[in-house]
């Protein structure tokens, strides 16, 4: 398990940890039932406050990613992969509806919208700029 913390990103450290563990779970790198390192060990290893790791785990627990038992440790929770995916799909759907509405109002074709999504996904900023100048 790898966790990288940035002190310059401005994002609170507990959120960085929680988000990275979420990603590891969603990517299947941390499997259901797997035990997470103890909060104390994680804090010592990362040289950060124990309170920070505690908050990260609390966040993960609240979002249903892990379960913690006093004295036993924290474990990756089952079932929520599907649920999480569904929730995310719903969220993306509503964002796409907004995008498609905006496109229609502005007279941008579906073809162009598809292209744009590919570009955003590929992260090629030059192509995005070119598409913008075309419009």
């Amino acid at each position, binding site marked *: 398990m790898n966790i990288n913390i940035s002190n310059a990103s401005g994002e609170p450290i507990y959120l960085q940890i929680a988000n990275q563990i979420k990603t590891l779970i969603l990517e299947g790198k941390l499997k259901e039932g797997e035990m997470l390192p103890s909060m*104390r060990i994680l804090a*010592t290893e990362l040289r*950060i*406050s*124990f*309170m920070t790791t505690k*908050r990260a785990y609390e966040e993960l627990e609240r979002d249903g990613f892990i379960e913690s038992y006093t004295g036993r440790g924290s474990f990756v929770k089952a079932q929520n992969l599907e649920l999480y995916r569904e929730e995310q799909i719903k969220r993306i759907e509503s964002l796409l509806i907004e995008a498609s509405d905006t496109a229609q109002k502005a007279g941008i074709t579906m073809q162009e919208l598809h292209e744009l999504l590919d570009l955003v996904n590929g992260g090629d900023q030059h192509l995005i700029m070119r598409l913008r100048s075309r419009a």
Partner: protein
Amino acid sequence: MTKRYDGFTLDSISFDVPKGCIMGFIGQNGAGKTTTIRSLLHITDIDSGEIRLLGLDHIKDETAIKKRIAVVFDELPFHDVFNAKDMARIFEGMYPEWDNTVYQQYLERFQLPKKKKIGQFSKGMKMKLQIACALSHNAELLVMDEATTGLDPVVRDEILHIFMEYLQNGERSILMSSHITSDLEKIADMVTFIDKGKILLTGYKDEIIESHGILKCDKERIAEIDAEDIVSIRLNNFGAEVMVQDRENASYKYRDCVIDPASLDDIMLYYVHRDVKEWS
């Protein structure tokens, strides 16, 4: 508690160190850190108030407390002619829970010679020896006064890591004074700021750092910022930097201003100037 000296008063200061926590005790030289620590160790008498260590009264239960705590000073309080082995004998007599095996492990880890006279130790070695002694009798509370000051960054990092290991079981706590906030920025769970004998701020480090921010704006716009949002304002010829105590609220209220995260150093700096409000 309150402690009055001629020209200096620790003015009804109060803070808690919860079990399992590392509390960073931050302040300028002369702010009252050492006086506070000397008071709670009953090296000096307080004028009024109450101090409890491990739930016990710091005067009535002094003997019981001292067996269960460890203290590290910035200067080695041991005599120059002793060596590390002598220290073990002295501490063994003082602490019922002294563990020679643990002590030997720390000596090896710190690569400290056992028979060399302490007088010939470097500053870093002296501090490591003090820490080795402090960690070898199962102390439930470590009290440290500027323990990492004057050490090089490599040694400081090593020692901070050892402190965190020492707290692994969640039953032990550390009160650590320092004016080097970068050490505490990393490992402290809580921080208490002291200035001119008064506590400015005490609480969870993450919350304190997240709630504060430095708002950047034109000098002309300072008047638009509510006084209650401001800790103090640092002026320069080209603009103003305002420490705000509720970053989220400020970013909502003053939408077009940039608000940077604040470090513990920044927070201390702006609080120290809170009485003058505008400084440069």
